[in-house]
C-alpha cells in the first residue's frame, strides 16, 4: 500500500514570463523590441518525482525556490508549462485558509460555501457542521458576518472546515502557524492523526523543526530544482548547508 504513488510528476517545468510593460502605449512604443521587455523565469525545472501514499513529505528551500509553485502545480491550481502531473484520490489544498470566505456572509453560510469549494457535499457538511463549529470554538459568533471576525477566529473556522474535508492527499502551505498556542497544538495533533490514518501530506514550511519532527521525507528545492530528496533530518541538514554556502 505504501508504495503506491498518489502523485506522479514527470519532467515538470513551469515558466513565468515577466512582462515589464502593461499599457497599450508602452506596448506600441516598444513594438518589435518587446523581447527585451519580457523575462523568462523558470520557477520549476524538469522535476520528476513520485509521492507515495501514506508518506508525509516536507518541501523546503529558500524563499523563491519554487516550493509554493510546486505545491500549486500538484494541486492543479496552475498548469505546468511542460511535463505531466498525475494524481490519485481526493486532494485538498490548504494553501491559504479561508480563501473562499466571503466577508459579507455569516460564519454558518461560509462553512457551507467553503466546504463545497473544498469538495464536500451539502449532506456531508450538514453532518460535520457541529463538529466543525466545536473544533473552531467560535459557536457564539457562527451567525455573525465573517468580516467582523478577528483574524484568529477567521483561521480557526477555516482550519476547522479544511480538516473535515477528509482528503487522501492534503497539501499544506505555511498554515500551521495560526491561532494561539493551544489551537496550534490542536492543529498539529489533527495533522498527526491524519498521518496515523495513512493519509498523504505534502507540507511547505520554513519551520525546519516541524519538518524534522513530522516528515518521513524532505525534498529540498533550490532555484526550481531538487537538490536533495531523502530523509527529513538529512534534508534539513542539506538545506542548512546550502544556506551556509550562499
Amino acid at each position: 500500500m505504501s508504495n503506491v504513488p498518489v502523485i506522479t510528476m514527470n519532467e515538470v517545468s513551469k515558466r513565468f514570463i515577466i512582462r515589464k510593460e502593461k499599457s497599450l502605449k508602452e506596448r506600441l512604443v516598444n513594438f518589435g523590441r518587446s523581447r527585451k521587455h519580457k523575462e523568462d523565469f523558470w520557477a520549476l525545472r524538469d522535476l520528476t518525482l513520485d509521492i507515495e501514499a501514506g508518506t508525509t513529505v516536507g518541501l523546503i528551500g529558500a524563499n523563491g525556490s519554487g516550493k509554493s509553485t510546486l505545491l500549486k502545480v500538484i494541486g492543479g491550481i496552475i498548469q505546468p508549462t511542460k511535463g505531466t502531473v498525475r494524481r490519485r484520490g481526493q486532494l485538498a489544498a490548504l494553501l491559504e485558509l479561508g480563501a473562499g470566505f466571503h466577508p459579507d456572509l455569516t460564519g454558518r453560510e461560509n462553512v457551507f460555501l467553503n466546504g463545497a469549494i473544498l469538495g464536500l457535499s451539502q449532506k456531508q457538511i450538514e453532518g460535520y457542521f457541529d463538529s466543525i463549529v466545536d473544533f473552531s470554538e467560535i459557536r457564539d459568533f457562527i451567525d455573525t458576518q465573517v468580516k467582523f471576525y478577528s483574524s484568529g477566529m477567521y483561521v480557526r473556522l477555516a482550519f476547522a472546515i479544511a480538516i473535515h474535508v477528509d482528503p487522501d492527499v492534503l497539501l499544506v502551505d505555511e498554515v500551521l502557524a495560526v491561532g494561539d498556542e493551544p489551537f496550534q497544538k490542536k492543529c498539529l495533533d489533527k495533522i498527526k492523526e491524519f498521518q496515523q490514518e495513512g493519509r498523504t501530506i505534502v507540507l511547505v514550511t520554513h519551520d525546519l523543526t516541524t519538518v524534522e519532527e513530522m516528515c518521513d521525507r524532505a525534498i529540498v528545492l533550490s532555484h526550481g530544482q531538487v537538490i536533495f530528496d531523502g530523509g527529513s533530518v538529512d534534508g534539513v541538514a542539506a538545506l542548512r548547508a546550502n544556506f551556509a554556502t550562499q
Partner: protein
Amino acid sequence: MAAGAPDATLLGGFWGGVRDVITHRSLLDLLIRRELKARYKDSSLGFVWSFIRPLTMLLIYYVAIGQFLGAARNVPQYAIFVYSGLTIWGLYNEIVAGSTMSILANAGLIKKVYVPRELFPLASIGSALFNFGIQMIVLLGAILVTGQFPLSWNLLYALAAVVMVVTYGVALALLLSAFNVYLRDIQYLVEVALLIFFWASPIVYSWTQVQTVAKNHAWVADVYLLNPMSNAILAFQKGMWEAGSKINVLKGADGKNHAVPPVDWPAHLEFRLLVLFVIGLALVYVAQRVFARLQGNFAQEI
C-alpha cells in the same frame, strides 16, 4: 474527484468540462446564492432594489421617450412594449457585464483552490437568471393588470428568446471572463459595447419604426437583423406584447385617432431563431475550448 485541470484535447475536453460543471452543481448553486445574498447584504430594502431599478427604467423610458418624444403615439401599449424589451435586454446585459468580471472578482479563490473555473461565469449567469425571474413577475403582473394576457402559441417565441439569450450569454461569458484576465480593457470595452447594442436593438423604439426609416434601403433592416439580440428581443416582444400583433387605434400628436397596423414581424422568425441558436451552440463550444486553454494561467495572471 478531479483536482487537476481538465485535459486539453479537442473533443473529449468539451464534454470533460461539461461533466466537471455537472459534478460541481451543488457548488454552483451555492455560488449563485452567495452572489445573490452578498449583493444586497446590509441594505435594509434588500431585494426590493431588484424591483426598483427596472421600474425606474420603465418610468424613465415611458415618460421621456414614450410621452415627451412621442414614441407611444405610434406604439400601442408602450409600457408593456418597453418593459418586455428592457426585461430581456436586462438579462443579457447582466449576464455579459457580470460574467466579464467574474473571474477577477473571485481572484482570491482561483489562486488558492482548484475548482472548475467555468463555475464563476456560470454563477453570474445564474444570478442574472434569478433577477430576470423577478422582472418577469413584474412584467406578467403588468400584463395581467392591463388585461393583455398573450395566451397563444406566440408565448413559445418568448421562451425561444430566453433560450437564445442564455446560449449567447454562456458563450460570451466564457470568452469575456477569460480575456478580461489577460487584458483588463475588456471590461470597459464591454460597457461601451453594451450601451451601443442597447440602442441598436428594438427596445425603446419599435421594429416598425426601423422599417419605416429603412424603407428605401432594405439592406439596413437586413444588417439590423444580423444582430442575434435583435432577433431575440423581437421574438420576446412577439410573445409577451400582445398589442403588437393586432390593429390598434391610437391618439396621434394632433389629437386625432389613427389606426396602427400590427408589427410586421421579420419573415420566418422561427427559422432565423433556429439558425441563430445553432450558431450560438457552436459559439459555446468554441468559447469553452478557448476558456479551457486560457484558464491554465489564470492563477498567475490575476
